[in-house]
């Protein structure tokens, strides 16, 4: 792939905070590249450096073989879709879209032709004479994109373009964005804090934290093989374990001992070069676990643990279980519902269950920071747990069970009548 845009050891400091710290990255021609991270991670600063609204304290920005570090924004062949769209409120939509060409000194007839072409692309021909205050958020979004694309930028910068829209519209616009990308073939640099948007749109993602790039890769790479505890916890959800390598079985697998809890040794895939006695951090995504009441009959590549279901959170397409594997160590497990939920074998509170997972699905982290544990979802706290005595727990439990079993009964009646 051809190198198109390069950030070369770029650093930007605001007062005492390092917004961007020694970032080097390369973007290819025609790809959708996302900068993903929590607010304040430096992703927007990086975009503003590229647009020319900020200038780096050190480092270079090279676009299409040309050093653009010192160029003002109006001389860069880069255009931005702003987070709040920044449409000019006193101009009609037509004049908004044509603004850039007007500034470039193009003839009026020529501008009109180009604007009409853009309006057709975003399917808003009939609203050209309205003002930005008279259209909806999704339409503003489209105008902002058209206004930037009419300049035929070498790279289009999108600064959280969907953040202001509601969920359904966000999904539709993200689809529209990728269609527009396919149509114009321009390189997109997309800044977002929404992992779902980044994963669904991007060819590649750079996950940023504290002004640095934590990991750069395809959506599958950053999700399935995160290099650090931050990436693992920020994208999706996960369970973290500290462990010591007991023995290296072969080049693929090691046997490890989990620290801080009495458990049998576990089989773990060797992501990294490890030796006997090494301390490792590894992480397993909640959906990689399977859960069953009976002891599963699986190959020796699976790890099997026993635990008790502490909490069940039903979320429609999936259910989140919190399983206590002993010493109050709770593991997050999600189970997709491939069938009508109540037709599946019901799992109840306080059921003794087996949880098992393929050793290949756990992965070792290169970098680990304990504060990233705060990013993963916490097990729900039982309110008044300390006040409620042991003896009061029993009726409470039976109550829950009876509610669930009654719903099951009801549904069974329902399904039989349907049948």
């Amino acid at each position: 792939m051809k190198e198109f845009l390069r950030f070369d050891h770029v650093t930007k400091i605001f007062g005492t905070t390092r917004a961007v710290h020694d970032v080097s990255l390369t973007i290819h021609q025609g790809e959708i590249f996302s900068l993903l991270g929590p607010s304040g991670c430096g992703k927007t600063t990086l975009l503003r450096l590229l647009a020319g609204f900020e200038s780096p304290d050190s480092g270079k920005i090279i676009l299409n073989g040309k050093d653009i570090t010192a160029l003002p924004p109006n001389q860069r062949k880069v255009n931005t879709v702003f987070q709040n769209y920044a449409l000019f409120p006193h101009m009609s939509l037509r004049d908004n879209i044509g603004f850039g060409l007007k500034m470039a000194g193009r003839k009026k007839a020529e501008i009109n032709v180009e604007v009409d072409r853009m309006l057709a692309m975003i399917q808003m021909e009939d609203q050209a004479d309205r003002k930005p205050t008279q259209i909806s958020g999704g339409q503003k979004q489209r105008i902002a994109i058209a206004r930037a694309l009419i300049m035929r930028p070498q790279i289009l910068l999108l600064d959280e373009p969907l953040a202001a829209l509601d969920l359904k519209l966000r999904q539709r616009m993200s689809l529209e964005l990728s269609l527009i990308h396919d149509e114009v073939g321009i390189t997109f640099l997309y800044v977002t804090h929404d992992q779902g948007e980044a994963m669904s749109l991007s060819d590649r993602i750079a996950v940023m934290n504290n002004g640095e790039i934590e990991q750069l890769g395809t959506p599958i790479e950053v999700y399935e093989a995160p290099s650090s505890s931050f990436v693992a916890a920020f994208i999706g959800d996960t369970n973290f374990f500290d462990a010591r390598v007991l023995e290296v079985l072969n080049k693929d697998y090691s046997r490890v001992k989990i620290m801080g809890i009495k458990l049998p040794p576990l089989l773990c895939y060797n992501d990294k070069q490890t030796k006997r006695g090494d301390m490792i951090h590894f992480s397993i995504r909640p959906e990689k676990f399977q859960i069953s009441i009976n002891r599963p009959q699986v190959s020796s590549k699976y790890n099997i643990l026993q635990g008790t279901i502490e909490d069940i959170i039903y979320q429609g397409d999936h259910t989140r279980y919190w399983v206590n594997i002993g010493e109050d160590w709770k593991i997050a497990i999600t189970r997709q519902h491939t069938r009508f939920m109540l037709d599946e074998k019901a799992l109840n509170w306080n059921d003794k269950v087996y949880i098992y997972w393929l050793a290949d699905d756990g992965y070792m982290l290169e970098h680990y920071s304990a504060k990233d544990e705060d990013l993963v979802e916490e097990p729900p706290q039982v309110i008044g747990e300390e006040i409620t005595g042991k003896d009061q727990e029993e009726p409470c439990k039976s109550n829950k069970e009876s509610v669930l079993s009654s719903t099951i009964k009801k549904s069974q009646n329902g399904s039989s009548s349907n049948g």
Partner: protein
Amino acid sequence: MAKKHIFSKKRIFGEFSLSFPSMLWLIIFFLIPTLIIFAIAFKPADPLGGIGSGWTFQTILALKNPNYPQIIWRTIWMSCVTTFFTLALAIPIAYHIARIPPGRRDFILLLTIVPFWTSFLIRIFAWKAVLHPEGLLKHALVYCHLISPETLLLYRPEAVLLVMIYTELPFAILPLYAAAEKFDFSLLEAALDLGASRLRAFFNVYIPGIWNGLLSACLMVFIPSIGSYVIPDVVGGTDSMMLGNIIAQRIFVERNLPHASALSTILILAMLIPLLFFLKGKKNKVGRIKKSTRGIE
């Protein structure tokens, strides 16, 4: 439909009852006195300085004084020049105040208002001291060979303009700042991003963005300027007399109230014309906003 009608009637009454006290105030202390001044212009003058009985067109005809067109023209011209320079100074100042961090912004705004803590008259006499032939400024300029010792800084139209601009500046900065503070500065970035130069972004995006504030500032400067009396009286000479000075002369020197009333009526008309333009400009804006909200519904 019927229900809506009752509601709107009720609402109109509500709005009227709320604005009634201020309407009453304006009618008693503004509208009626203005009409009285207008009426006096059609009364004969009393030789003792009072107002005679009966009605006459004599005073209106007496306005054909050959000196008047020049003075009226000068008054309007000086007010326009003052408005222009005051805005030219106030627009960048308001822009910068709106862009600095909020903590320091309050301090700068305070500095803008501080001159009001001193009497208007004292500030003008202070300028007189500064511009005086024996004043510090004159000596400094002569010392630097920028002016000859014979040049007079005081008692000329330029001195009047300088002091008027100085006096009106805060009145322009405050409405312009209020508009600039509400302005979305990312629009300027968007304009730069689309290839506009800083100057074009300023005139094509910033100025339309603060348009209402600009109109208010124009009126806030133009109206007091056109009626100024003290400033030309203190720092101006005979060639910088304005309408306000002539009115004062008619009252204090000639004791001819009808004549002064006729001149005042001209002054009021001169203020009314830009005010009507302003209202028209604003009205359009309001109409547009109403239409746009309807569009969203």
